[in-house]
């Protein structure tokens, strides 16, 4: 079994997107504990990849392919995790681009890097009304909500979202971070967001700090 755990970890490090599904199914057939497979195998692999990327040893496409590999593997193993057994320790993040804004590459990079650093990301996509974002965050028990805007005139939607969260008592349940090219430190402070970062790597540092992990 240890062998399968190690192989699953290596599959992520080698970004074997095409072979991981077969490996995961085979592991299950051989009696692998799916939770071990995810946490000690796939997730351990993505954490190592994330570290190496942070150290400048790996390139982004390698990270993206590794994250894809992990996602494929998790999709096979997760349904088999016993509901009453050990729970996975998972930091969930909901990401979205605000209403009226359809730019998402920055958000997508943040999603990739967060996944690579062990977060579970629920990406709602672009042009998301504030209510949908809040609803989803509640539904999945997110610890963190991240919204982005590329256009200066979409930025007020961020302020709206935070007010709405405040009035629902949500600010105490989870952290809210903002991002996008025109979003400055000053603006984030002004709308009383829990933080902002200038690029995807900075977002990871911020997220880890906010959920209580050492950066």
């Amino acid at each position, binding site marked *: 079994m240890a062998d399968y755990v190690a192989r699953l970890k290596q599959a992520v490090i080698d970004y074997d997107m095409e072979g991981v599904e077969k490996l995961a199914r085979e592991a299950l057939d051989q009696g692998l504990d799916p939770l071990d497979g995810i946490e000690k195998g796939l997730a351990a692999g993505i954490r190592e990849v994330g570290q190496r*990327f942070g150290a*400048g040893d790996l*390139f*982004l*496409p390698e990270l993206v392919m590794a994250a894809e590999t992990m996602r494929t593997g998790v999709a096979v193993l997760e349904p088999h995790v016993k509901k009453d057994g050990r729970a996975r320790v998972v930091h969930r993040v909901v990401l979205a681009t605000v209403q*009226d804004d*359809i*730019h998402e*590459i920055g958000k997508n*990079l943040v999603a990739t*890097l967060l996944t690579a650093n062990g977060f579970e990301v629920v990406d709602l996509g672009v042009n998301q009304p504030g209510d949908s974002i809040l609803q989803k965050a509640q539904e999945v028990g997110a610890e963190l909500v991240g919204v982005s805007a*590329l*256009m*200066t*005139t*979409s930025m*007020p939607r961020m302020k709206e979202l935070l007010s709405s969260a405040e009035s629902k008592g949500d600010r105490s349940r989870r952290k809210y971070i903002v991002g996008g*090219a*025109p979003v*400055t430190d*000053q603006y984030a402070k002004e709308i009383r967001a829990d933080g902002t970062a200038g*690029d*995807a*790597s900075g977002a990871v540092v911020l997220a880890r700090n906010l959920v209580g992990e050492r950066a």
Partner: protein
Amino acid sequence: MEYGIKRGVRFEILSKTDLERIHAASLHVLEKVGIRIGSAATRKVLRDHGCVVDEASTLVKIPPALVKEALGKAKRTITLAARDPTYDARLDGTRSYVTANGNGAMTVDLDSRERRPSTKDDLEKSSRVIDYLGNVHVHWPMVSSMDQPPATVHLHDLEGSLNNTVKHVMYETGVTLPDAKRLTEMGYLAAGGEEEYRRRPVTSCLQCTFAPLQLDGGVMDASLFFARAGVPLVFFGMPQPGATGPATLVGSLVVGNAEVLASLTAVQLHAPGAAVIYGMGNAPLDMRTTVRSGGSPEHALSGAMATELAHWYGLPSCVGVSATAKEPGDQAVLEYFTGLSGPLLAGADLMCGVGLLEDSSCLYFEQIVIDDEIVGAIARLIRGDRADEETLALDLIEKVGPGRNFLAQRHTLQHVKSDHFMPNLIDRRSYETWAADGAKSMVVRAQEKTRWILANHEVPPLPADIRKELRGVIETARRSHPDARGRGTPVA
């Protein structure tokens, strides 16, 4: 007309076969993969001309014959007119023109050195600096007036620009139909009326396509309007190699080319003979920092390639440069020099844009002046060298003979200005003289020069009645949208 940089191609990278293959690949993509177009009006134009349109998915497939037809209608020579005709940028294939960089959201204050959101004052000051510099030929509002009411920010940008430079003003902010209408109205006013504007358009709009293979609804609605209104357009493709386009530069060109051809086709069918410039800038995503690598060699190469492709189509080219440097200095120079030299040596018609740092988001006044110097050096490289009786000067060599010198010869004075680059900012004095004068770095000298320009350079004002009417357009906009619901500018 001596304005701009006289073109001389010093750098060619694609063969005719390469160009044909790229074109064929883009046509294949347009016909078989299609392009998603958010504008119902644009989809209608294309459907009416025989394209396969799926309204549910907004996917449009465009047949090659239609693209060919549209290219046939395209305008080959486009003049971006200036308030003062001396500064007209005539894109006719013989000269290259450099523009300012546009729409930064931050400025580093020239005096306090504080890095803060941009203001209309920054916009006006930077326009005046651009107006003064000899190696920047077309203006682009360099920052957004973030201290103005949101719905009017970009109208203020245009007004501030028109009032502070006599050069042509290209903007990037016509991204919805209502914006387009107002910006056009301001252009008409500045030119002295619609008829005069159509003859000599003093403003233009750069529109970005959205890789891979998407055209934004508001942008296309605005573009159809602009085209009929006589406002020149640039359609600028920006797939980022490795992210929104294949990692191979030419693969990303294929994707961007499909987007630009689709936009151009729709516009030419809607408004035959409209002035459309071919734009492309493929700076890759830097795979370690996740930042766009502006000023990279690839960015330069993509501009050179796009120029060759545009010229093969018979269109003027518009390409871009930017820098990831966070402050003026060596890195900014390496990135700007790289990014400017590639396309300019390939003969780019319109080269955007100087003066911003942090991937075109932060204004440093001194960088504008430094970039002006870089362009000057590149212009000399483009002029090159030629051997003829006058330049070989054999008679003169014989006259001077071994061991003497040429300083006192008339020939020397006659040719020195044309043959040698005369720096404005580079200080070539010996160490002792330079040290005695304060040992000032180039950045410091650039700051001093900027202050001099701001204190001494005056721009002839627009007539008072025009100024009043422009303010009127802004006021109307402010009153009808008090809480900024219009679509704003993508800051990228």
